């Protein structure tokens, strides 16, 4: 996997429902360059039972195990101060209500964490709690109650491995603090978001919404605006912002293609530009840049739509919809999700691949295979089961996401045992040439024993990538042999069924609703399964949209205009709550929520970025205790650390 981190933004942000503002308390930590980012190392062997007394700035160190700090003298406090601002209900004035307390800590501040050195490292064992200092009895009692509450929902087939068919679904009822802004009217101008792709000659190629006759006048305007800056200023226009109406127009000009994103959701320029880059990359994956330039070389008024096909437009629409409405962490985190399996299971699969590659080097000479993947596909999401790659080389996640979007399309309507041979340009690898992907569907299984809901179908697929356009039979032979070998060794059973999917309730992290955790060096992330009772698609979409917006806010709270984090290490809390004096309910169109008295909005989220990992976390409604949230965050981190070799592909089969 590629280590390049682009810090792409998770999501789009919606304009806030009036009366709801994020209150922001922000604490960024300047760890000096000599300071090793050793927090994560400590977490390896330590249970961070952070029981934190009411924080004050003096931070009188209640440190039980000082030796740990001493053994890492450079580790300094990363404790965030509970800011008063977070509880303050906000005033209508935007500039003042986004009260941000930016406290740069002096790195000498002592740690106030309570470390409990627990060698067996069993975070699931409640007995560890009892070993705590009695002074924190009250905290412990609360914690036990939390655990009890969570154990009721504890998910049976967790990573711990016990199996029970009963699968309760954790509530996904978090309040939506944002107005439903997707569409205000029925005309095409009323969409809160739109994407346009056109040629430099002003011919339309694609728009997310709008018929030809509606969009053509805009093509002329976009073209004129872009050309004006190119001619008069010799520069490319990036963005136009209308502060009053919160409208943003972002432009990308890559002759012969112009792209424009329009948003009324308060998205940042950077967010929109990265989204445009994905759309442009898709175009290039279909027609590489060299082909594109050749097409337009002699005919600048070429109509590219004649060259693209239904599939392309479907895929572009699909990508736009992912960008606009779905939680799309693959893109947002610029990372991939990994199929969970035991360390030794994955090692055996990788060994098998590796050995077969060595044994077959006559039939599949070095250089034929560039890259290989075994993927699991479920609910329109791909997860990595195994990776075959040359030492020191990797493909960019954007390139893989483009490949995924191509395969997704084929998945929806596959015929029996067909194998595919797909030319695809990986723009981040080489935007002028094609690579060829051999795609073989390995197996299909239904993880739901009770029903036959289509969303429980899991497909496994093998992808082998080559630079040689006639390598199909070589790769096919290799693929067939690999699959036979995996079957005969019964290794295929490890990835045909997701045995280890987990819910948030499997982790002893009280009050956390959902999280995403990314390890940067693997370019992979993990998050609890999003499930909706009865597979209600509308409900699922609504829920994902909510999560997307919360995560979007979190992310934007710590990045600058270019989308880069404001600091190497950041820990930040965001708080969403409504103003008490305002009535907010009117516009809500959700009949379910109207049947009950609506919950008071009091949401909190945490974002924690370090050079090693990124953690995004959203709490249950009503949670406002930062200490508990931070403690839960640390539990999530140590849980992910504990199961790192299951949750992430660390090496893959390298050759």
């Amino acid at each position: 996997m590629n280590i390049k981190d682009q810090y792409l933004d998770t999501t789009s942000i919606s304009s806030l429902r009036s009366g709801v503002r994020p209150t922001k308390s922000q604490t960024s930590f300047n760890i000096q360059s000599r300071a090793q980012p050793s927090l994560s190392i400590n977490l390896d062997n330590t249970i961070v039972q952070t029981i934190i007394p009411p924080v004050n700035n003096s931070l009188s160190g209640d440190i039980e195990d000082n030796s740990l700090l001493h053994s890492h003298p450079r580790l300094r406090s990363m404790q965030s101060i509970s800011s008063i601002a977070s509880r303050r209900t906000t005033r209508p004035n935007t500039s003042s209500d986004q009260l941000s307390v930016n406290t740069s800590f002096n790195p000498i501040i002592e740690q106030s964490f309570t470390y409990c050195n627990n060698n067996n490292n069993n975070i699931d064992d409640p007995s560890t709690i009892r070993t705590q200092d009695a002074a924190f009895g009250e905290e412990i009692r609360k914690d036990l109650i939390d655990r009890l509450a969570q154990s009721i929902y504890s998910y049976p087939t967790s990573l711990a491995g016990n199996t029970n068919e009963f699968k309760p679904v954790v509530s996904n009822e978090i309040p939506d603090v944002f107005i439903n802004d997707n569409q205000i009217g029925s005309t095409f101008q009323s969409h809160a978001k739109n994407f346009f792709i056109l040629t430099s000659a002003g011919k339309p190629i694609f728009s997310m919404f709008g018929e030809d006759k509606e969009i053509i006048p805009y093509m002329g305007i976009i073209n004129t605006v872009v050309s004006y800056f190119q001619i008069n200023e010799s520069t490319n226009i990036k963005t136009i912002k209308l502060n009053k109406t919160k409208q943003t127009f972002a432009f990308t000009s890559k002759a012969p293609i112009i792209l424009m994103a329009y948003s009324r959701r308060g998205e940042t320029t950077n967010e929109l530009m990265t989204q445009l880059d994905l759309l442009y990359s898709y175009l290039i994956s279909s027609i590489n840049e060299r082909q594109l330039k050749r097409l337009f070389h002699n005919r600048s008024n070429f109509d590219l739509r004649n060259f693209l096909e239904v599939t392309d437009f479907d895929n572009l629409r699909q990508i736009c919809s992912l960008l606009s409405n779905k939680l799309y962490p693959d893109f947002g985190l610029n990372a991939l999700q990994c199929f969970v399996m035991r360390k030794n299971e994955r090692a055996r699969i990788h060994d098998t691949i590796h050995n077969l590659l060595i044994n077959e080097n006559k039939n599949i000479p070095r250089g034929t295979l560039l890259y290989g993947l075994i993927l699991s596909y479920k609910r329109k999401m791909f997860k990595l089961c195994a990776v075959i790659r040359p030492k020191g080389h990797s493909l960019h996640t954007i390139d893989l996401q483009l490949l995924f979007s191509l395969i997704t399309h084929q998945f929806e309507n596959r015929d029996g045992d067909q194998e595919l041979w797909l030319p695809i340009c990986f723009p981040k690898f080489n935007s002028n040439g094609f690579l060829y992907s051999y795609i073989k569907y390995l197996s299909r299984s239904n993880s739901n024993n009770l029903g036959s809901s289509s969303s429980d179908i899991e497909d496994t697929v093998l992808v082998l990538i080559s630079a040689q356009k006639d390598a199909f039979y070589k790769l096919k032979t290799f693929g067939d042999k690999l699959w036979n070998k995996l079957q005969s060794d019964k290794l295929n059973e490890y990835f045909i069924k997701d045995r280890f999917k987990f819910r948030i309730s499997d982790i002893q992290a009280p009050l956390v609703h959902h999280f995403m955790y990314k390890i940067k060096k693997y370019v992979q992330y993990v998050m609890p399964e999003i499930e909706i009772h009865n597979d209600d698609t509308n409900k699922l979409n609504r829920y994902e949209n909510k999560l997307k917006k919360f995560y979007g806010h979190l992310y934007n709270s710590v990045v600058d205009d270019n989308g880069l984090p404001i600091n190497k290490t950041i820990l930040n809390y965001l708080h969403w709550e409504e103003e008490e004096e305002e009535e907010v309910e009117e516009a809500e169109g959700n009949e379910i929520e109207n049947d009950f008295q609506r919950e008071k909005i009091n949401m909190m989220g945490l974002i924690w970025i370090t050079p090693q990992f990124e953690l995004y976390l959203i709490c249950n409604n009503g949670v406002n205790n930062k200490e508990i949230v931070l403690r839960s965050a640390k539990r999530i981190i140590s849980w992910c650390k504990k199961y790192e070799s299951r949750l992430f592909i660390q090496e893959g089969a390298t050759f």
Partner: protein
Amino acid sequence: MSNPITSIKLVLLGEAAVGKSSIVLRFVSNDFSENKEPTIGAAFLTQRVNINDHTVKFEIWDTAGQERFASLAPMYYRNAQAALVVYDVTKPQSFIKARHWVKELHEQANKNIIIALVGNKVDILEENEEERKVEREEAEKLADEEGLLFFETSAKTGTNISEVFLGIGEKIPLKGLENEHANGGLNVTEDQRVNLANTANASENASACSC
């Protein structure tokens, strides 16, 4: 002789959305789906059928009809023993494209390649004959001139689909018959024209289809 297996490499060519994948789906799975996704790149499928006590294994390349994949086509037809050139009987443009494919195959492909010209979607004509935009006679004329097999099919209803593949299968010299190809070929069909082509192919093809 005990049921020898002959492999036939077959490629489908033709304009986008004429029903190439549907023809294959009907042949391989006896199935049809109304709103098929366009093929990207090419799909590779196999199907075994028995023809005159012989098992024939079709290795089928179902190529994308889209123009931008056209440059890849030579890779698929280069070693093919048979090709289906498919057009849509309701789309005159697709027949023009079919003519181009036939020309290209004669120029570029294996000299002995067996080409079947296939006019698909005749089920539409059953509802309304006025939908026909490519006359049967016109296509038959092209087939005669170029020495092609010719069928009008419907992947939707299954009309004539297996006939296309059986027709191809019967024209390919089968393994085990190579030494007695003259007799074997005579038994296949009564059609003299087809038969002659077959015997001619058989002698030349014996070396070519060593795969």
